[in-house]
């Protein structure tokens, strides 16, 4: 009995410690963020941020777009097979449009970015820990959070919402293609229906979510990197942990945000 209590206790403490570490890192990153901004900050950090934007955002676009097209198509087909029985095929448009802007766009993007970039952050920073590069940075009077994390965070905060919007567009486009082939509904008319079915709140809620997901993916990925101890095998372990934990936390955060939006009536 005592051992069970001990294990529950120490497990809880570990998780609390992890969340504490995440929050501390987030606070430090927010304080270091101004250095990464253009004009007012350090131009080297801004340059690094732009490079990260290309890596996190531009290079991820083809993959995110393809995922969104497939998911949009799947959603439309699954919805149509049920809705057709009630003669309500045109509700497929609402399903795809609202489903993507509120939910699937930000979520798909976050999962894709966590797999592509979250793992890359953990591996990059973890390797820097193992090869003493992080120590070298500190000895050279650089703050690793400012030097390594801030550009990534700024880049993610800008590119992930943009990617989410593009993801929404691709998903909705796929729905339009489905509607065209199944009911000969013209794309122009389809998009007119889409615009009438979504409201500004849906888009804003989606963007709020994607900013939160960007924060989770970057901070979990980087924290896993900074926590690497031991050697190369530690890097492998934390790369895996970065993807698993950030995907998990993204979905938990999604549930929390959706609940908040639902119960405050902004949805």
């Amino acid at each position: 009995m005592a051992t069970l209590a001990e294990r529950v206790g120490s497990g809880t403490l570990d998780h609390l410690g992890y969340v504490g570490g995440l929050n501390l890192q987030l606070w430090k990153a927010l304080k270091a963020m101004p250095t990464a901004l253009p004009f007012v900050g350090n131009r080297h950090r801004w340059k690094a941020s732009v490079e990260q934007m290309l890596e996190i955002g531009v290079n991820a676009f083809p993959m995110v777009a393809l995922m969104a097209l497939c998911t949009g198509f799947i959603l439309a087909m699954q919805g149509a097979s049920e809705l057709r029985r009630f003669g309500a095929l045109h509700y497929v448009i609402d399903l795809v449009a609202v489903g993507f802007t509120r939910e699937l766009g930000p979520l798909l993007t976050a999962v894709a970015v966590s797999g592509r970039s979250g793992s890359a952050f953990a591996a990059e920073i973890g390797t820097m820990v193992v090869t003493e590069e992080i120590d070298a940075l500190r000895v050279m009077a650089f703050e690793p959070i400012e030097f390594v994390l801030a550009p990534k965070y700024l880049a993610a905060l800008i590119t992930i919402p943009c990617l989410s919007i593009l993801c929404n567009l691709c998903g909705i486009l796929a729905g339009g293609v489905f509607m065209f082939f199944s009911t000969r509904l013209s794309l122009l008319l389809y998009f007119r229906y889409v615009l009438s079915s979504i409201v500004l709140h849906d888009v804003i809620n989606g963007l709020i979510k994607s900013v939160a997901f960007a924060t989770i993916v970057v901070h979990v990925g980087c924290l896993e990197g900074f926590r690497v101890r031991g050697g190369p095998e530690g890097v492998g372990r934390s790369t895996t942990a970065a993807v698993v934990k950030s995907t998990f936390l993204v979905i938990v955060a999604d549930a929390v945000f959706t609940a908040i939006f639902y119960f405050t009536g902004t949805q």
Partner: protein
Amino acid sequence: MSAISVRNLVVEYGGRRVLDGLNLEIEQGETMVLLGGSGSGKSTLLRHIIGLERPNSGSVVVKGTDICHCSEAELNTVRRSMGVAFQSAAMFNSMSVKDNVALNLREHTELAEPVIDLVVWMNLAVVGLAEFGDLQPPELSGGMKKRAAVARALALDPEILLFDEPSAGLDPIVAAELDELILLLKETFHMTIVVVTHELPSAFRIADRIAMLYKGAFLQVGTKDEIRNSKHPQVRQFIDRTPDNMATAASIAAEFQKYLESPETSE
């Protein structure tokens, strides 16, 4: 005033005492070698001297600043007068050798780019790598990487230069080249140099004084002749390369006999 003074430094990791009340004065312009076997705490001592970790009690005073009890900003000021060459060289793999050396100059000084180029070239020339500036760190051999790390440490004209295991993993010729480089730096720039090593030939070649560490405490601190002629049994053991009592054929047989006669095996 001594360049570095370590006062009553106590460090514990998880209840185990790694450094046990160390006192050491390193004078301006001398080469101090911290000599000791694996696990003697010499690398831990170095990490505290460069302010990467804070001790449980005691202090390290570098050029009049107590770096264990000062603000991050003061610590960074002290760090700009220190150069550190890490054991694994810790070159930033994402930048060319030239950019590695220039990093400190670009970020911490207002020098124009042509001046930075000149300083970088001079520093690379000092370590004999003037033609290799455009290579990436992974393209360098082990010895070249360590020399490049020295060039980077020299960039801001430090008064104190610290080396962590400069000859570890190098063949004798390259290790000797590094020793000569350290002597050259001392002669040309009159730097205070601290070297952590377990290599006897290298220690006796470069040192003014040697501090012999054993299980977290200094056995003896003295000039190299004093150490060479030391009567202290553990110092003698290190210098004469006498192994500790390890397993012998007879002791293994005795252990086996004991195992056979133990109650668990006779049941």
